[in-house]
């Protein structure tokens, strides 16, 4: 259905990011970029959201949390790994307690490189995610 495409609600989780990517995610919601134009709402609640944005790498401390949050999102859902750390672990990849990127824990649909990721790239990733969302809905 086309409605999913017109109303992507996002939920933003900060893994162990340096806050650089987080700031850029929030920048998308400001008047400068205004993603509400596309119906994007930052819900702050996994149960209400369609798209999970994760910044920062996954470590042993938050692995459980990320899994729980992912489980609590209703289908169809997509995950976007924002920034180099989320995509691969980045410069923290070799740390003693870091597992690596988000895909070590939950399936990731879109990867965005960058340190920090640009707001334009983030918006672009959400648009890409919409296509994946639609496909997922068709499958179910």
């Amino acid at each position, binding site marked *: 259905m086309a409605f999913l495409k017109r109303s992507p609600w996002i939920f933003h*989780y900060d893994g162990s990011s340096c806050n650089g990517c987080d700031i850029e995610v929030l920048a998308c919601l400001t008047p400068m970029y205004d993603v509400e134009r596309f119906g994007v709402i930052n819900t702050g609640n*996994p*149960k209400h959201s369609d798209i999970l944005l994760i910044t920062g790498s996954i470590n042993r*401390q938050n692995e*459980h949390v*990320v899994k*729980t949050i992912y489980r*609590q999102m209703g*289908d169809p859902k997509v995950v976007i790994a924002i920034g180099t750390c989320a995509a691969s672990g980045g410069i923290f990849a070799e740390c003693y307690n870091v597992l690596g990127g988000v895909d070590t824990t939950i399936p990731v649909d879109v990867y965005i490189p960058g340190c920090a990721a640009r707001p334009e790239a983030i918006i672009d990733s959400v648009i890409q995610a919409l296509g994946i969302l639609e496909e997922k809905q068709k499958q179910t």
Partner: protein
Amino acid sequence: MGLHMNWILFLILFPLLPAVLLLFFRSVSIQKWIVLVASALVCAGSIGLAVTCTQAKGQYFPITSDIFNKLIVAGDIVLALVFLYVCRRLPLKRYWIPLLAIVQYAAVVWFDLSGRVPETTHYIFVDNLSVIMALVIGIVGSIIAVYTIGYMEHYHKKHPEIPDRRGKFIATTFLFFFAMYGIIFSNTITWIYFFWEITTLCSFIMIGYSRTKEAVHNSFRALWMLLVGGLAFAAAILYASSICGSVDLRQLLAMDKSVVMLPILLMSFAGINKAAQFPFAKWLLGAMVAPTPSSALLHSSTMVKAGVYIVLRCAPVLHDTAAGAMVALVGGLSFVAASALAVSQRDAKLVLAYSTIGNLGMIILCAGIGSHLTLWAAVLLIIFHALAKALMFLCVGTVEQMTGSRDIEKMHGLITRMPLLTIIMLVGIAGMFLAPFGMLISKWAVIEALATRNPAFPVIVIFGGSLMLFFWMKWMGKLIAVTGPQPRQDEGIGIEWFALTGLAVLTTLAVPLYPFVGIHMIEPLYGFSPMLNWNVIWIVGIMLGLILILPLGFFIHWKNLVHVEPYLCGANVTDTHQFMGSLGSARDWSFRNCYIDKYFSEEKLFRGALVGSIVLLILMFSMEKL
């Protein structure tokens, strides 16, 4: 004519028989059968009276023989001696408690024996208000009596230290019926006074049943407070017989207001006192130390209802007078103050006690104004309140026996532990405040009736009603929280089920039945009310239908439901009542209701209500001539 008279005499005198029998038969199974048969008879008698006899104007029965009158005087003397007897162990410094009894009885008996009380001929009467009261007492009262059998069984198992005097306890229940029927069918205030003091005695016995220190203390507090009301009643008798020249209630109510105002105000004062309005609220709050059936009885069908009944009788004189407005304000103050006080309580019985005081305040408010619309609302309130409140007390009593606590916080998730009982309890709570159940119909009637008056009155009802909604809702929320599988706690409830389901069904049935009661009983009494408009009845009917049909939705299995645990910021662990703490260990979380002590603290509000009500009472008596 003769038939009705016999019927009424049966209702008044019959309860004495089981009361006496229960004192003599100690065997539990025989007691059980006595209670069952007697309750059925009392109940059937009340219904029979209601079916055969509806009297708008009132039917008065002459009694030529003087023997009854003599009996009442003798009864007064016996009662006085009993009061002195129960006070025998009081410390000397509390001499004023027996003194209260001595003063009033000495005056009344002296007046009676010296022939200063004017002769009357019509001692007994019946009208629709009496019939409605009889129905409330007969049906609700007998259901409570049946519940008592099962309850006392558990009670004495749980409290082996308390001497088992359950025969006396249930006998007191029937003595209560005797007194209540006496009050509502007597047309002479000397007679009403006799029965009035019996109810005081009965509640004293019931409150002090367990003989613990607290129970004894509270029972004596109830005794002296209620004797103050008795004193006012005695003063009303003296004034009525010496100045007004009559103790016939019908004649008194027909007299000129300026002549009869003082005795009527004294009786209203006694009514306010018995209905546990501020400043006398304390006795009813203390009454909760007693076994629960007695609270149910005191709060719903008997005792406090006698108080509002007498004010309702006085309403024609109070109508459109400044003193009457003061009576109404005492009720209004009690309504708002008690509702606010209930917000900060977490003891279920205390919440119920405060809500009783509040609801009775609303009835007194209606009676004090005394227009036919408010009286309409008052009668509806009496009916609905008796049903829902009895139900609530019995539920709380059962929960306390099964779980060992009546703390509302500990009732969290009760629906998973005692599903059926919780549903019955929800009916009771809904009956207390939610549309379309009875109390809300009454509140509606009250606001409609009061809107034509001074805006102060509807404002009181509106604010009190909002507070009421608040404290009932948060209790309801506690009950229905679904906490996941829990061990069941509702095994071992026996005959109580009968009383609980019976009252729940009646609370629900009272809603579709109110138009019938309205048309056949209240309308002849007080005239037409907008509550009988077909539109109104239809809307209430539809709402009730929805409330009854929608629960079937529980049985529909929704498609595609995906079960997930509650949101805990992702820190969920297997147990839903725990979360992952920052050091990786599972920590408990729990949830408490808000009680807003800061604004609704018992201490401050109670004192304020006391002062306010005393000022209003003083104003009431000083406005007697206005």
